[in-house]
């Protein structure tokens, strides 16, 4: 087995033994290696939460920002340097709760980002409260009578908002998760991979066994460009479909349409202040 340049020497991980995050980290490193990317080309962006610590365990450029704001930061990074491969990673609370507004509007904006959501339907870092994807009736120390709100459906929400790559993976299947991640990273435009993942400490309902019983595999090579079919899949009750639900040619990416790149493709860090244009503007006021 060849060494993976994305492997990192690190101390003790802050994840619980048996956490699905290990498998997701493993899949991501394999996916990046498989795509022939170098750690210098990649920026891993995250917010706050257990999953959001992933950039500290993978060797690449990284930006571990604020809770809920990974997608905003990732959009800024991509806008400043479109040559970078920008991947945002975080949990369901981070991406769909605190960052819910950014989730909606980043999809609308369509930057070329890949978003990996480690969806374990519970809060880990704050010790076991409900998350936006917790099922109704889910009992926690905070929600003593069970969750009373409807769970957020990220796949359907992303689809109706115009995302052109939508997939669901399962942390228990590293091989397929790797393949899905690679397809998502290759996709031009916003791509979402919601990854079912057990929380062995705080979620005693949605366990490895539960996910196995309540999911079904989609044909890996299926043509996934039918919006209506994708919507049916996204809305389907258990067993939940795993695989690529939707993949279609997207509109122009956010970064491509920015004025900064109209006639200059260099990343923004290479630019110098445009004093000539400022001078010309002032001269124009004399006319």
């Amino acid at each position, binding site marked *: 087995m060849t060494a993976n340049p994305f492997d990192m020497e690190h101390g003790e991980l802050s994840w619980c033994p048996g956490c699905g995050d290990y498998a997701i980290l493993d899949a991501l490193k394999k996916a990046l290696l498989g795509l022939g990317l170098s750690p210098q*080309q990649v920026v891993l962006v995250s917010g706050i939460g257990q999953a959001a610590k992933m950039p500290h365990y993978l060797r690449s450029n990284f930006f571990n920002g604020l809770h809920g704001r990974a997608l905003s930061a990732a959009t800024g990074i991509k806008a400043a340097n479109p040559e970078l491969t920008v991947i945002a990673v975080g949990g369901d609370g981070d991406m769909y709760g605190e960052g819910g*507004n950014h989730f909606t*509007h980043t999809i609308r904006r369509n930057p070329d980002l890949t978003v990996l959501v480690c969806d374990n339907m519970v809060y880990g870092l704050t010790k076991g409260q409900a998350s936006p994807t917790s099922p109704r009736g889910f009992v926690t120390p905070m929600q003593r009578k069970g969750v009373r709100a409807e769970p957020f459906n990220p796949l359907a929400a992303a689809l109706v908002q115009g995302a052109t790559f939508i997939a669901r993976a399962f942390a228990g299947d590293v091989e397929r998760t790797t393949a899905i991640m690679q397809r998502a990273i290759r996709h031009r435009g916003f791509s979402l991979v919601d990854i079912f993942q057990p929380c062995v400490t705080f979620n005693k309902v949605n366990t490895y066994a539960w996910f196995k019983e309540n999911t079904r595999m989609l044909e890996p090579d299926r043509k996934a460009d039918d919006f209506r079919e994708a919507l049916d899949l996204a809305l389907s009750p258990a067993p939940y479909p795993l695989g690529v639900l939707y993949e279609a040619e997207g509109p122009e990416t956010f970064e491509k349409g920015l004025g900064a790149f109209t006639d200059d493709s260099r990343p923004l860090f290479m630019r110098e202040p445009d004093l000539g244009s400022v001078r010309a*503007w002032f001269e124009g006021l004399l006319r």
Partner: protein
Amino acid sequence: MNSQISGTRDLSFVLSGAAGLGIQTVEEFLCRVLCRAGLHVFASREYMSRVRGGNNSTEIRVGTKAVRAFSDRMDYLFPLTPGVRVNIRRRISQATKIVADRGVFGGEFDGTEAPFVPIPLEDMTKELGGKVYAAMVMAGVMIGRTGVPLPRVLEEIEHFFSGRAEVAKTNADACSLGYRFGVELRGDSEPLYHDAMDSDGKKILLDGSDAVALGAVAGGCSFAAGYPMSPATGVLTFLSANADRFHVAVEQVEDEPAAVNMAVGASYAGARPLVTTSGGGFALMGEGISLAGIMEAPLVVHLSQRPGPATGMATRTEQGDLDLALYSGHGEFPRAIFAPGSVESAFFLSAKAFDIAERYQTPVILLTDQYLMNTFYDVDIPDVSLLRPAGKIDPTPADYRRYAPGATGISSRGVPGYGEGLVGADSHEHDEEAHISEEIDVRVSMNEKRLGKLDAIRQEALPPVLFGPKDYDNLIVCFGSTMEIARESLALLGRTDTAVLAFEQVHPLHEATEAFLSAATRVIVLEGNATGQFERLLRGTFGIRAHHSIRKYDGLQFSVEETARRVSEILEGGAGA
């Protein structure tokens, strides 16, 4: 106190009317004509928070010497819409000539001692094709009053409305009608205009908002994000409209946290980012400003103040967010805060904000307000060659560590994707490679490394500017947009023992401040808020108490006359602190 400054002559015109009557367009045109003719022009707008209707006004001062401050004096009031608001009505004096259509205004101005000059505006505009020409007729009156020759004016109209011959023709007719009225109004008094004006058409008109935006571009701004909020929207609008020309990546975002986090992300990847907002939006950005602090990400935040708390008064002015700018963002991190006192300063300090942010890798706040944003006057073309050249980002070596202290205590800044190294950034306390660290020693050394930058920023802080005699007894201390007003008030005061000390950088404060304050027998702090935020800052920093305070929090800017009157009351032993 209606006396004019000795040695200069200026006229103050106020045009008021409902939104949607084209006052803004006419104001622009009028000031352009006057400026191109070599006269000095100042215009300041105040408006209600609505799209149509209401009653807004613009003050236009025109003079033979520079005019760059808001005055209460109204030599002429040109109301277009009945229901002139109290802030204008209160300024009507015996010396104010009210030029209006008697049929429209009836007895609205009965009881004021101001002479009423009837103008048949309704009949004039009916002939021209409607009310939309009323403002242009009034512009003609004002121009006629100044004595700028009509052919010059007609030439400007053609230029201003170029490509729209029909519109230009009707506006020329409207302006000419008014012009003849204005010439009569002038009567025997000497015209302001004469053939050898000293600014000879080489001046440009610039408002605070465009000055901030252009300064940002000159400072290398390559990324801008914001959520529309008065009075800060104009900066984003300008950059967005000219994004291709200036090569700026501009985005209107879903909310303020998105704006600031996008900007910090862009900064991490090597852009020079700007976010622009007002108090409410700035409050929402607090966490992101703190993020820029710990990540040591260069970031410029334009905070344009309006009265709070909460939504407050959307279209009015105040200096009530100094504390917010000083203490925003949790935790401790270095920052610089600039508060431009003129349109030129708005340009240069906006550019400088990028330079300081970049070299010290920390957030810089540009503190302006509605008054400065919506005020313009004639200035020389700012000389961009005066700006410090921007630095370059070097490629990273293979063993690069983003937060290694470096020789000066400031880390060398690499960006992802450039060089052999890897670049990290973390919102947690972190080690030199930006990885999370809970080590106590790392925390202490990183915190000291960040905070240590403040001393260096202080070393190059802008000293306050002194206007008036160096051997003053009384010192009027102000910051930000009141600078030119306080400065002109000195001329009205006419005292040889009183000076103005104006601050355009409010954090960190320049060390010379202490000596300036100590030299005064009486320190009077003038500021646009109710609780004396700047006064408190001076006391907290230097242990020097102000002897007197002049504060204002009615949503309007200080005028030259109000400032002079209130200073005078203090100095003559009337109302005190």
